[in-house]
């Protein structure tokens, strides 16, 4: 780990742009934040704002071709992206990428994109509206193993730059940087600790997790809760750790030939048909069962054991997008109070 002080962020952006495509979270006129490609000509200032869509689709594409069959043989269609950098990923989303790295460990499509990516993390020094990352050990400070480079805002528009591994060190080679005093790391810790303290009381989430794992919650509770699940797929689409997908064959006819394309696309475990078998047998035909399964995946001990952490990274996107008002805050409050 190396620690530097950086006076001008543009220098770093420009440096990385030489060998990478660079993406950054940009806020538009309607305050909507989204990942956008940056060019050498125009560098937007770095903002610590949660984009509505996490970075997961940079690796796990919303739709992608897996293979094509041209009548004679099958051909794998692995993506071949140029090297790219995600500049300023917040800690919750970085934790989610690390989580998905495990899930997609043996997935060549995911890994083909993932290995081309340099992750530049950005510490949050203020709580965000729906976030509760400290409660689930996912922020607000970037965890060392989750990014190649970490940026931490200092006073006077200066930045602390931390390289956490060889990939990060390699990426900044040639950039004129001042090695930082170690006391600035202490300053960082203090700032992050203060930020953690500024979060509202989220003890109901901790209580909810305990109760969820106690086996005490009755089926009737989940059934009542699930009346409000409209099966919209918003939560699973925006959740940075959700990874369910399905596949389909599409025949593409042109004048020259006809090929069959196998396409993979995002799915949602909250659809009734997600687990339905051809015989119509369905282990989760009841909405209550599906909603329970979703939260069990996010907070259940059995998944904690596999992934060494919760499946939830505390970003709060589900609360914002759920039309049925059963996002994480609402559900955890109801589990704590009513279940």
């Amino acid at each position, binding site marked *: 780990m190396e620690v530097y002080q950086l006076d001008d962020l543009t220098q770093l952006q420009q440096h990385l742009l030489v060998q990478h495509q660079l993406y950054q979270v940009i806020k538009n006129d309607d305050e909507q934040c*989204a990942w956008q490609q940056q060019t050498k000509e125009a560098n937007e200032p770095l903002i610590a704002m949660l984009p509505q869509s996490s970075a997961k689709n940079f690796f796990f594409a919303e739709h992608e071709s897996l293979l094509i069959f041209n009548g004679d043989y099958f051909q794998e269609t692995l993506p071949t992206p140029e090297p790219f950098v995600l500049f300023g990923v917040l800690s919750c989303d970085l934790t989610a990428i690390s989580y998905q790295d495990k899930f997609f460990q043996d997935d060549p499509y995911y890994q083909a994109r993932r290995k081309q990516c340099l992750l530049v993390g950005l510490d949050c020094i203020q709580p965000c509206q729906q976030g509760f990352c400290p409660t689930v050990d996912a922020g607000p400070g970037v965890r060392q193993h989750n990014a190649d480079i970490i940026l931490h805002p200092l006073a006077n528009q200066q930045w602390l730059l931390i390289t956490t591994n060889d990939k990060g060190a390699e990426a900044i080679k040639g950039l004129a940087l001042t090695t930082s005093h170690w006391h600035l790391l202490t300053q960082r810790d203090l700032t992050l600790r203060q930020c953690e303290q500024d979060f509202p009381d989220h003890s109901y989430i901790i209580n909810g997790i305990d109760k969820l794992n106690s086996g005490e919650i009755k089926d009737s509770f989940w059934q009542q809760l699930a009346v409000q699940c409209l099966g919209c797929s918003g939560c699973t689409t925006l959740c940075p750790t959700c990874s369910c997908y399905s596949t389909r064959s599409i025949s593409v006819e042109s004048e020259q030939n006809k090929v069959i394309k196998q396409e993979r696309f995002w799915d949602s475990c909250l659809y009734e048909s997600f687990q339905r078998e051809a015989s119509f047998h369905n282990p989760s035909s009841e909405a209550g069962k599906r909603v329970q399964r979703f939260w069990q995946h996010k907070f259940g001990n059995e998944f904690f054991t596999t992934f060494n952490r919760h499946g939830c990274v505390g970003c709060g996107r589900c609360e914002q997008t759920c039309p*049925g008002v059963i996002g994480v805050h609402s559900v955890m409050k109801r589990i704590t109070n009513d279940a």
Partner: protein
Amino acid sequence: MSASLIKTTCPFCGVGCGMYLKVNQHGQLLSVEPQQSHPISQGKLCDKGWSTAYAIDSYQRITQPLKRINKSFYPISWHEALTTIADELTAIIDESGSNTVGIISSARASNEDNYAAQKFARAVLKTNNIDHCARICHSPTVAGLKQSLGSGAMTNSAKDIFQTDLILVIGADPTENHSILGGHIMQAHAQGTELIVVDPRVTRLAKLTPMHLQLKLGSNIALINALLHVIIKEQWFDENFVKSRCQGFEQLVKHVKAITPESVESVTGVDAELIRATARAYSQAERAMIFYGMGITQYVSGTNNVISLANLALSCGHIGKAGTGVNPLRGQNNVQGACDMGCLPNVYPGYQAVAELVNQEKFSKAWGTEVAQPPGLTSLGMTKAAQSGDFRALLLFGEDPVVTDPDQNHVQSSLKNLDLLVVAELTMTETAKLADIILPAVSFAEKDGTFTNCERRVQKVNQALAPLAEAKGDWQWLQALAKQMGSQALNWQNSEEVFNEMASLTPAYQAMTYQKIADKSGLQWPCTKETPDGTAILHQQSFPIGKARFICVNQVDIDEPIDENYPLLLTTNRLHFHYGCGSMTRKSPLLERETPPGILFINPDDAKALHITHQAPVSVKSRRGYVETRAMLSDDVPIGIVAMPYHFKEAPSNQLTNTAQDPVTKMPELKACAVVVTALAKGIAPKTIQQLQEAQ
């Protein structure tokens, strides 16, 4: 990966949620994202909205004009398509007159497209034969509320859901059909707003409240008159409001005097005490809102049902204030706009009556040509006249009446009987299959324009993609066709010019511009010189007709009750996965996977008696038709009632539905008809209607 985000309005349902289309550097639509700052949807979408990219995907789209020769379609050029249509239309008009041609426009298309369609009909074809699917959703709302209040639109706004003390949902299933508003209602209820649901089925909202009035099909007026009886008897009405703002209360008092809750118990199936409790809750609430849908309008009594709801709101003074009102939930993304644009045979844009000479002169002058004078035909009137050969040519876009209109066999044979049927569509539909010429239409993502949502909010639709192949916008091909027919009446450079012309002739839209609509996140009409920022709540000071009218209405029983041969009542419903005829939503592999292609909801007790198991193949037969489908056993439908969604062309409920009509609006009674259900041999897939018809 990274993509440009283009802001637009969701193309499904009348809520009009804000969404961004994510377009990659190759100009391909990747997916959508909800708009967080949108005044209604605030970062939420339903399953239909999330699946938008599938709905308009280039896969399976019609990409060039097609001409039918016998049973096959062959590609032709736009030039050939337009000359063929123009020549045939001219020949038919010359031979049989303008009243034998007409247009069915689309509640899915933009205001600009709809304005162009009615102008094309009136100024080029010289006929008032112009209609659209509002005929079979909210025409009774337009007619009913116009009589009672003077304006046939939602009186209040979506945001009022969070400013009210009580929400009465009657004959509507908002969590399925207007999911985001349904979600708002759930949220408000969770925060303490009282919720009363009146519905024959146990809807999702009904499961959340103890106040569920599970009335019998078609007993709305009896129930509402009984509510009025209690409110008047207990002196719970708003005396001040009734005196100062309404007329005709004395007659209403007399009219409902004998209609006690007990007297309607058998007709409605609702316990008298529950009726009293509802009357008390609604009338005594500080602010109370009514939401209603097709369970009110799709009856032979549709217009009177709407009027009785207006009576209820007026008597309690629950109108003209925040958190109150009579609020129809409009079905399609732009059904409000298509009505506002005058795509109705009896009104010009802005509901200016066709029958009035002054309006005829206004539009003749504005359009620089004599407009048609004789009254026009409704959509069902056109199909009926086609049957007898009195109607010969139809232009139709963005609708699939073969699937969505009542009595499918009648619609199909009528359309086949036409000399010329032109259909503009995104993908091949059951109606398009009957066309002589099919025109490739652009989707909402490929056009600029505006949609008007159910709370009268006019919102921008912004072009995100280039038109697919040779596809054209509706006003653009209508313009090209007008030119081909020698008319310069449709002469615009872009959609903004269409909008500006429309706004100059439509009083409620007069102060709207594209820029203002974009700046204000939409504008709610009326938006005039006096109300330049639009109007969130109608009728605050007075009604367009001065004083609102109480109109006495009587219970009208459903047209086709059960009997020995047809012992079950069929009602229609919708699933949140699908939109209308399913031509868009069924392109999503996820939504399509959710149900078999066609289902019948049946109570487990009825199923048991008929030896029907879950997902088993069944036949459903009415006096008009026969379909095969799969049974879904569900306690959500009461004993004696079965329910079918109408999204599926394989098992269309409209093979079965009744054509008996509301006398005022010609709205067919889609919500109730008698059927017989029989179990089919197990293990055999239900035959689609197409297979059944071929076998004949």
